[in-house]
């Protein structure tokens, strides 16, 4: 049995994602043409041989439940263990109505689950992170260093809302943690943590006793003197998705071969629920360049610098540029759209014109008819 257990957090509402979180948690926002954001972390865990994962939930999680189902996609539909969805447990009434204020409070809400974990080590991760990282390497580094907590961080900071930074000393020891500083400095923390299950339980209890709720403020910062916290420096691609602008920019990055090939490395596949769509049909007279195209689309118009999810229809004479078009969207004939993010099942009628801006892409809510 693998020594690692996964915990994924999905409780932050991230209002900066605007229309995209009207109907769902950030974890289940479609990304990259056929995935949901949470698929990346679930696949990272699967690729590291992890079979037992708990997803800590709060808020509007119906879409997330529909998407992950029984975890079969990630081979986590197991007789013992497997994937468990963890809304706040009824016995912990205090967590039922309010939002979680931090990871430690969220973990306290599912304490009885944590006790039952069969593995000695736990990896904690957020569900808003786009990354393809070999977690086994992080785990090995953790065992080798003898640290209490190992935190994945990157020297390549890209603008992220509410980011956390580390200053690393000798042997990558975390010497300082900065939460949401005015000026970014040091290593950007990607909020993937590896630690012993026993330590995690102790930290949950200690924090609960003192009404402390935050992992980064109360544990990483507050207990830095008592704990050996190390950074694991990740040089590869990583993106936290917390605002609409971040969502759009990180999506558009995939239109370059290098990030596409890194994120979708065949050796560590990102797995998504099967959409059962036939391949896409490019009709005579259509034109598609520099774009990601999922299955099940029928394209009769022009598509440039865009990402199309499954089952999209693009009519004759229509032009789609610099846009992200979610599943089942229909754009009829002679329409023109640019810099838009069209949520699921949006319909844009014949001749419609919609233009956002590179710095302010226009997001269109699910099911809207224009």
């Amino acid at each position, binding site marked *: 049995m693998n020594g690692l257990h996964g915990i994924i957090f999905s409780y932050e509402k991230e209002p900066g994602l605007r229309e995209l979180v009207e109907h769902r948690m950030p974890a289940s926002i479609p990304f990259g043409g056929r995935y949901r954001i949470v698929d990346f972390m679930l696949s990272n865990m699967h690729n590291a041989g992890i079979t037992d994962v708990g997803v800590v939930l709060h808020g509007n999680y119906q879409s997330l439940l529909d998407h992950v189902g029984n975890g079969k996609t990630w081979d986590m539909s197991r007789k013992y263990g497997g994937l468990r969805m963890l809304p706040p447990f009824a016995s912990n009434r205090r967590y039922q109505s309010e939002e979680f204020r931090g990871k430690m409070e969220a973990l306290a809400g599912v304490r009885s689950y944590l006790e039952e974990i069969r593995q000695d080590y736990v990896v904690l991760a957020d569900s808003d992170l786009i990354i393809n990282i070999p977690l086994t390497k992080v785990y090995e580094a953790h065992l080798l260093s003898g640290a209490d907590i190992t935190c994945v961080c990157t020297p390549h900071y890209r603008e992220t809302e509410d980011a956390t930074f580390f200053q690393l000393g000798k042997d990558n020891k975390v010497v300082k943690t900065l939460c949401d500083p005015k000026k970014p400095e040091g290593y950007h923390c990607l909020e993937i943590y590896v630690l012993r299950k026993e330590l995690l339980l102790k930290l949950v209890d200690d924090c609960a006793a003192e009404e402390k709720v935050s992992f980064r403020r109360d544990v990483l910062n507050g207990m830095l003197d008592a704990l050996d916290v190390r950074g694991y420096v990740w040089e590869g691609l990583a993106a936290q998705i917390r605002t609409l602008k971040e969502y759009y920019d990180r999506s558009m990055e995939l239109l370059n071969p290098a990030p596409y090939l890194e994120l979708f490395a065949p050796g560590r596949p990102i797995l998504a629920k*099967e959409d*059962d769509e036939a391949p*896409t049909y*490019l009709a005579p007279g259509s034109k598609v360049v520099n774009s990601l195209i999922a299955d099940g689309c029928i394209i009769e118009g022009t598509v440039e610098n865009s990402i199309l999810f499954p089952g999209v229809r693009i009519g004759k004479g229509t032009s789609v540029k610099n846009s992200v078009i979610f599943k089942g969207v229909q754009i009829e004939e002679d329409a023109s759209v640019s810099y838009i993010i069209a949520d699921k099942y949006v319909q844009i009628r014949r001749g419609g014109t919609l233009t956002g801006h590179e710095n302010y892409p226009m997001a269109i809510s699910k099911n809207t008819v224009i």
Partner: protein
Amino acid sequence: MKKECIAMLLAGGQGSRLYVLTENMAKPAVPFGGKFRIIDFPLSNCTNAGIDTVGVLTQYRPLELNSYIGSGQPWDLDRDNGGVHILPPYQSATGASWYKGTANAIYQNIGFVDMYDPDYVVVLSGDHIYKMDYADMVAQHKRAGAACTISVMEVPWSEASRFGIMSVDGEDNITEFAEKPKEPKSNLASMGIYVFSWSKMREYLIADENDPASDNDFGKNIIPAMLGKGEKMIAYRFAGYWKDVGTLDSLWDANMDMLATGSGLDLLERDWPIYGRSISAPPAFLGKESCVEHSVIARGCIVGGKAENSVLSVSSVIEEGASVEYSILMPGAVVKKGAQVSYAIIGENTVVGENASIGALPDGKEGWGITVVGPETKVPDGYILAANHMLSKNMKEVAR
């Protein structure tokens, strides 16, 4: 355990007329339509028609097929009671033998069928591309009180002599059956899809087995025997898209039918979905310099070059400066820089080396035909494979 109706899918054929494509796999496992395999069609038809118990009779090179079918989950056929079962020939107390023919394959599995005690058995084959509601066919069979119902479709008179031809009376009772007749009396061709009342079928299978002269084949032996004894046999008329993909030309044609809007083959229509085993690949990437015209493109494809009138299957690659036209790239096929592929089928995971040239345009001359490169083949840089030729993994080149 009783089921009103189960299906038996004949998937043991070698598919020798697909040559290099079936050297290492059975015909039903051959990729089709960008992300499917031929067997996805009968399996999806079963699940869409509400038939939840399917026996798959395998014999030739079953490895690929067995692992593809697995638990049957992609077709929703992983059931506690029923589901999909792989049925290879097996050893019994009285000895062991290969399946001698289509009828013998089912004869050897009478025990399997009896387990479900069905009233009706649907017999299917694993080499046809079509969407059909078997439940409707079974309903007609029940209404008519038939012993056997055979699905038929009208074919052009000029082609009738290539098929098994049924003659019928005014109420679609089958009066005569002729296998590839020189002078056809009807243009109703058998599609190789049968519904039998199990008690009758069982009787005829046992009688057929006891006849040492028999080829143990449905078309050659069972159907004529039932007709001869005056059993009630009815034609079920089918009018949709149906194609036997048992030859390289018909396999190419059927793939190309996905591009022809009038062909009737519409896999994007959602009322009758075709399911296949899930493939983890990202969306297709069409690069800055790519030019893909009138084609079908599946997930995982990376296109830097040019494609026209082609089927680009899952995870196939066309590099910069390469061009593919009127061709089928099977899953994982790679066409390297500067290579040309025309009127060809490129097998699974085959790599066409830089500046190689595979196949050629039909220029009106006699003798042009589809060029085929078998799966897992490494075609060297600059290699030239002429039209109407085949190349296999061990670099053996033959004219078709």
